[in-house]
């Protein structure tokens, strides 16, 4: 291992010298995007409010929780998630954030279909859905704010 490293060290150094001379910078992740971060925050709040109001204002026993009454909100939130997915997808070197958005969108569509098919949703399932999306949005926010690291040099 050490022998191999010694063998490749001049090549690595040569590459680094070339990069340094040209004033080049290595890039693994895109820059932090305030607009995307704000949209993640807003969408997370909308989803949270969606489930909290469903839990507080409706019951599983009557028809107040039927899918039709929530269809517009489902569609509106799906459109927001689609928008976030596309905004992330077009940014270069952004595969990780794109995948997080894709998973969130996939589960949103899945839970929407479940509600539509059964036309009911228990309190426990509302809490579970709310928790799942809260965790996913947290991951999304961590990924976006993680990009700030490249703008903050170590002290």
């Amino acid at each position, binding site marked *: 291992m050490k022998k191999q490293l010694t063998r490749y060290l001049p090549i690595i150094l040569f590459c680094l010298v070339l990069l340094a001379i040209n004033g080049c910078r290595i890039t693994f*992740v895109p820059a932090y995007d305030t607009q995307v971060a704000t949209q993640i925050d807003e969408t997370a709040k909308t989803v949270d409010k969606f489930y909290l109001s469903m839990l507080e204002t409706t019951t599983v026993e009557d028809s107040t929780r039927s899918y039709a009454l929530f269809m517009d909100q489902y569609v509106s939130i799906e459109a927001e998630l689609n928008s976030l997915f596309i905004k992330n997808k077009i940014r270069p070197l952004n595969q990780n*954030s794109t995948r997080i958005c894709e998973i969130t969108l996939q589960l949103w569509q899945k839970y929407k279909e479940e509600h539509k098919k059964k036309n009911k949703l228990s309190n426990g399932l509302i809490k579970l859905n709310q928790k799942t999306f809260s*965790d996913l949005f947290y*991951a999304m926010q961590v990924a976006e704010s993680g990009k700030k*690291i490249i703008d903050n040099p170590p002290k």
Partner: protein
Amino acid sequence: MSLDINKVIADMLAAIKGTVVDKHEKVESIAKQFLIQNKETLLLIAELRISGELDDEDFKSRMEDQKLVLEAQFNALQVISKAIAQQAANAAIDVLEKAIITVVKGVL
């Protein structure tokens, strides 16, 4: 004036170490937060299975969903790791760049 490559390499390593050590705690605290979140969700899934709100099929389906959440969390940690690697590599290049500029100025 010549380039003291051993000193430059030592300085580059120090720059890399400084960057990585500085961000280590951040990665650790986020990973711990993810673990706490997963524990809470798994407990909730177990409660719903026990209470009968989830049948066998739904339970399996929710466990599969939890794997996707875990995948999302790993992706988030990867972004942070990549950002740290980027900052460390560029800090090392900065050190090398400064050393070369100093030598070139000395020669001229």
